[in-house]
């Protein structure tokens, strides 16, 4: 972990590069994640968001670069984009299996705690394959939280959820963050990033383009308008230079467009 001023990061990465053959999925990306912080990784398809989270989670090995994680086992929780669950097992059995594999001291207590936290206590004996997508995602997240991690990595957690389930998810993540957990999540939905993230990290084509708050991203785009630019793809039908004001998504698209993405 590294300290910046008075803050100590939970998770730190320096110069992360991941190549698949000659193709670079990620190029020299660095980041810090702090306690109680929600960091959104945003970018278009193929930007390298899942690769970055996979590297931070330890699922992938970086070609170059370094990652600093807490030394405690289970200190980094990971919630993959697709629920990583056994559909023939119940919610409780899935949780119990991973609690045992994580060598949680009291697996049954941890399972009960997570079932209560995720609101799945009444469905605990249902086979996961029969649960709704939202409930499956809850179990998926609960597994990532079994070890009470210092940092939780979520790869597009709201992708398969309806608006009401999405709202519940973000409330849950908000509570986690308030309890001190660093939450790093990737999303396509830049509106969600603006709404729920403390900071955003913009990736495009494996390259880190921006790190800062959503407001800072908007300001960056606005300041760039001092020099005229042709309208971006998200600005069709609007007067250039006005569309992104108060519209984070348009600002984001403009930001990418100005940088050739």
């Amino acid at each position, binding site marked *: 972990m590294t300290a910046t001023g008075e803050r100590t990061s939970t998770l730190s990465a320096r110069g992360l590069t991941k190549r698949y053959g000659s193709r670079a999925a990620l190029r020299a990306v660095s980041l810090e994640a702090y306690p109680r912080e929600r960091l959104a990784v945003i970018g278009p398809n193929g930007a390298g968001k899942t690769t970055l989270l*996979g590297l931070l989670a330890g699922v992938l090995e970086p070609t170059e670069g370094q990652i600093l994680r807490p030394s405690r086992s289970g200190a980094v929780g*990971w919630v993959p984009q697709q*629920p*990583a669950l*056994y559909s*023939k*097992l119940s919610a409780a059995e899935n949780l119990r*299996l*991973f609690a045992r*594999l994580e060598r949680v001291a009291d697996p049954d207590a941890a399972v009960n705690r997570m079932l209560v936290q995720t609101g799945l206590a009444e469905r605990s004996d249902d086979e996961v394959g029969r649960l709704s997508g939202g409930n499956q995602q809850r179990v998926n997240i609960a597994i990532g939280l079994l070890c009470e991690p210092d940092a939780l990595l979520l790869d597009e957690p709201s992708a398969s959820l309806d608006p009401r389930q999405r709202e519940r998810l973000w409330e849950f993540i908000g509570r986690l963050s308030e309890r001190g957990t660093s939450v790093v999540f990737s999303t396509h939905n830049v509106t969600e990033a603006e709404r729920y993230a403390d900071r955003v990290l913009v990736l495009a084509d494996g390259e880190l383009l921006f790190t800062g708050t959503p407001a800072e991203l908007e300001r960056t785009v606005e300041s760039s308008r001092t020099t005229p630019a042709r309208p971006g793809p998200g600005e069709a039908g609007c007067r250039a230079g006005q569309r992104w004001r108060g519209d984070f998504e348009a600002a984001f698209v403009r930001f990418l467009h100005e940088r050739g993405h």
Partner: protein
Amino acid sequence: MRWLLVKDLQILRRSPLLVGLLIAYPIAIALMIGFALSSPPGKPRVAFYTQVAPGRGRISFGSQHINISRYASQLFQSIQPIKVKSRAEAIAKVRDGQASAALIVPRDIVSQIQSLVTQGVGNPTVQLILNTRDPLERQFADQAISARLNQVEQAVSKQVLRVAVSDLHEVLSGGNVQILGRTVRLLGLRDSRTIIRGAIASLPARSPLRVALRQVVGFADLAIEGLGFASPVLSSIGTPLTVQQTELHGATTPTDAYAVAIAVVVSLMFVTLLLASGMLALERSENAYSRLVRGLVSPGRLLSEKVVLAAGCAGLTTLVLAAAVSAFVHLDWSRFELWLLALGFGALAFGALGVAIGGLAREVSAASLFAFLASLPIAFVALVPGDAVSGGVRAVLDVVAFVFPFRAALQAASNAFSGTAPGIGWPLVHLVGLAVVFAVLARLSMRRFAAA
């Protein structure tokens, strides 16, 4: 690993239809294959060596001659003869697999038959050497040659009997025979008796010759009535040939036990391959693989768990199958520990092959299909009788059979079930080697598995 095993067993328990099919289908296939292989068709290749010089195959019986050499052509209708020039060459052909058997006709066969048909004493013997490397092939060659030899025996017997009956008829009733180019009239027993009776009637009542001639008539009566004296000779030439059978490589597996071994190994292969490949691919289909290998379980341990799971389930299933079949077919229960070894090692090798398939296929449906499609040719290649294909194809099939576990598992199982040669040691070593190779391939395939 324990919790992964428990998890997989829970998943299997909740898929009864799948498990039922997984067990019933291969058993049904295995039994059908076992029965089908019990009666293979075709002609075996047989190395044929005769020490009887050309033109020396005639036996004389009475005034007639029989050429037994012409009966060899009947034998050749049932086999593909490979004519060789020495006994050693014949054995070499069997040893190196070019022939499934060797038939050796000794030099004294003609004199033995001659002695048997003329004196009732003799032991004409041909030597049959069988290759026991493949029990089905051995049985195939044995049956084909024995059946045809039996026909030859019958044909020779009929010919000899016809000659014998003809000669006996001449003894009884008289006739003309050729001796040194001259036709000689033979007086038969019946005519002789008539003549003597006439002579007796013409003698004085008290002539001492009457007593002597009556004794001759009595002898003639006995001879005429008792022509059954020839029956021991005739019955002895009913089966004139004794087949002295020599088996290379020691004893052989009984065909029934071999068919059971085939059935069991086919089941073992199906269940292990489908389970190992399917359960490994399931980890990826359920997206759990990446979660597992980030420090919870190493890829090697995950592979080991799948192999152990598949091998355990398949081993148990096939053990039950073998035990059930043993109620109908004799299997050597005193070698039960070898059953366990054979099935265990076979299951491990198939399990390693299964996880290699699962690692490559990555999805349950693809892995299952891949395993299923691979199973049939793997078994087929190992079961093709060597005589059914040409030398080049046979060499290719041998190589393919060597690099997959079926043939080695079959050798181990057939040995374990019947306690016959070839021994179980080499097949077990072979299976271990294959298990290691496929485990390494599976581990390499996991890189692709993880990257996908």
